[in-house]
């Protein structure tokens, strides 16, 4: 029996990471921005049917970049995790932190054990309620690395430049229109074309809503928000 080629673990991880990063950087970016009433998620996504941003639970949203089938799998797993937990304990016991940890574990395992790593990054956002609890934004990378972000987050292709733009321009207490305009400008930093409502998928976790805080913002409303005075 021929011996398998020896590849050092270090080289193997490096190759996998490079492979995953390449796949992710080809995709379009997503930003999350905290605004006055919650968290805004903006994705560049010309499809109105295949979503990158979705509802997980009452106060929790999900966003994924990279390969659609891979983050879609993660999204459904997240909905199941949250619904089982909410059903067996109570709705208030479902937290973004536990879910983000589960994603981190899952992606970490896939990265080390499978031949092909997932080419995805995901955001898990939880909006705080009106009596003072804070918003939470978790950013999980293809290898299971998990970071919690404040005020804003960006992932996907050329996200470093987008993050830099957000860092320079983010302000506390933006209203929805201002936050949306900031998000769209941030997505345009890396490209020459102008993004219109047809290129965007936008949703919010709005703490002023009853129970289910997730709300998609339809194109006609986007149009008005983008046009409103700066």
């Amino acid at each position, binding site marked *: 029996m021929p011996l398998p080629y020896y590849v050092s673990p270090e080289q193997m991880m490096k190759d996998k990471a490079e492979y995953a990063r390449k796949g992710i950087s080809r995709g379009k970016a997503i930003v999350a921005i905290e605004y006055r009433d919650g968290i805004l998620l903006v994705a560049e996504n010309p499809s109105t049917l295949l979503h990158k941003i979705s509802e997980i639970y009452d106060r929790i949203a999900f966003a994924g970049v990279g390969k659609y089938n891979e983050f879609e799998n993660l999204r459904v797993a997240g909905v199941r995790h949250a*619904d089982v937990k909410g059903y*067996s304990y109570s709705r208030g016991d479902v937290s973004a932190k536990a879910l983000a940890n589960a994603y981190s574990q899952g992606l970490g395992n896939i990265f080390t054990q499978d031949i092909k790593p997932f080419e995805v990054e995901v955001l898990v956002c939880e909006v705080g309620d009106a009596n003072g609890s804070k918003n939470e934004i978790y950013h999980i990378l293809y290898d299971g690395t998990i970071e919690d972000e404040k005020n804003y987050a960006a992932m996907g292709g050329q996200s470093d430049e987008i993050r830099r733009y957000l860092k320079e321009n983010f302000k506390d207490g933006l209203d929805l229109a201002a936050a949306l305009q900031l998000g769209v400008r941030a997505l345009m930093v890396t490209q020459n074309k102008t993004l219109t409502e047809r290129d965007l998928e936008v949703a919010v976790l709005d703490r002023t809503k009853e129970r289910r805080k997730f709300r998609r913002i339809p194109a006609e409303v986007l149009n008005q928000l983008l046009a409103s005075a700066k």
Partner: protein
Amino acid sequence: MTLGSWRHAFDNRSSSSFFEYLRQTAPHLLPGADAPIPGEPPASGAMPPVPHGTTVLALRYRDGVVIAGDRQASEGYQVAHRRIEKIFKADDLSAVGIAGAAGPAMEMARLFQTELEHYEKVEGENLSLDGKANRLGAMIRANLPMAMQGLVVVPIFAGFDERAGMGRLFKYDVTGGRYEEADYFAQGSGGKDARDSLKKSFRRDMPKDDAVRAALEALLDAADEDLGTGGPDFQRGIYPTVKTITRSGITDLTDEDVRRVLDAILSNRGRS
């Protein structure tokens, strides 16, 4: 990659059903998971008395359906609970009225709510009203072992069918059999009395106020004749639950509105 593994995405029947997912991965979380197998004698003696919900009803009207229920749970000849809720919003366009063993019935309502929301989140769109009605039937069927032990759950299900553009209502039997009613139905220990009352007052395409009045009259009649059904309690301020379901969603009638209609009915009847 083997043939079986890509087929999984097609064959995985629990992909958007929360109920099936639990059944496959965590059956101990389902109501009645520990129920004895039907046909086997109960472990020791008979089932101890448990609270039972009594009368729920639903009727169609011009803009949709009215679904209503009294607030009492009974345990044999005793009042177990005076202000129990028996009408549960299932999603934005449908509601379940529970009759039978209160514990398993409320558990089933909660499972059903999760089932509908789960489907909506996974698939990105709502189930059709027929789809919802069938899912509830499957849950009742799964409860059959418990029903054989005396923990019968027979809800009614009402909702607005967006595709058909009208309100519809369904009753169930203990095996999960699902029967659509064209006009009205009432279930529970006072169900027959409520049905008798609705038979006289029901008209097709009634306006909302008439439908609400018919529902409350039926509940009053049921409370009059049936020991288990609770009447309105003016002293404690406990009134029947009434919800209307239309194209634009579910609306709860306030206690104040319900009391006003009840006052009108009772003064008409000379407070008999």
